[in-house]
């Protein structure tokens, strides 16, 4: 897994590539917590290059979303999610929990 981040005026974009599984999810959690710890609750996860995400990764996303949405102070949104991952999100009832955007620019544009 590789993580690249970009900070914009009203949100941060976290671009993950590779696998988000039990081995790598803690790394992603650390990066997301860095943002929420410093008060950045508007986050875009760019998933275009994610090959795989297991429930270990889903748990990180749920935990982060809980933190972001508390007090209506922000939200974590998901951008450019590959089709097989979309279907797996559906199994986990994820569609109701996150806003999905086809492109990162749309996600950034909502903040």
């Amino acid at each position, binding site marked *: 897994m590789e993580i690249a981040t970009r900070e914009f005026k009203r949100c941060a974009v976290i671009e993950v590539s590779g696998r988000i599984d039990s081995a790598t999810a803690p790394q992603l959690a650390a990066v997301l917590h860095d943002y929420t710890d410093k008060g950045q609750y508007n986050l875009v996860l760019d998933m275009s290059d994610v090959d*795989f995400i297991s429930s270990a990764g889903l748990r990180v996303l749920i935990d982060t979303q*809980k933190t972001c949405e508390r007090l209506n102070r922000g939200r974590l949104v998901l951008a450019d999610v590959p089709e*097989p991952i979309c*279907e*797996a999100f559906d199994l*986990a*009832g994820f569609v109701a929990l996150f806003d999905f955007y086809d492109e990162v620019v749309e996600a950034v544009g909502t903040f």
Partner: protein
Amino acid sequence: MSLVVLMPRTQTRTFPARYESLAAIDRFVAAAAEEASFDECTVYQVELAVDEACSNIIEHAYGGEGSGTIECSYRIQDEELTVILRDQGQPFDPETVPEPNLSANIQERTGGGLGLYMIRQIMDEVNFDFESEAGNVLTMVKRKKHSMR
């Protein structure tokens, strides 16, 4: 439909019960699912189910990363893929595991409990056997879906 009867193809590999093994296990099983000519999303879901099962073995059966192993076998016959995972960790009773909370309200969600649920959603058969001499045996079967026409 033309019926082709093929010899079953089987393969077995043993991996250290560590999270770093998950990528290799997933590749091993994804290759099998591709060989069974499942579509892209089904290959992905089989990979996901096996990853969840192996993560559980490491985390719950072995109580964390250690010196144990996971033996992974598969068999492809006709249009059916069977994946068998064996470990020497603690047995458990799947019947006592509660359903996860799938609420649409994020604050009611607990992040956990999705693994077993997704395994059962994905696979056509899921069977745990803790009586075996070979240790704990999890057998999962996935059948190829045919589009209606």
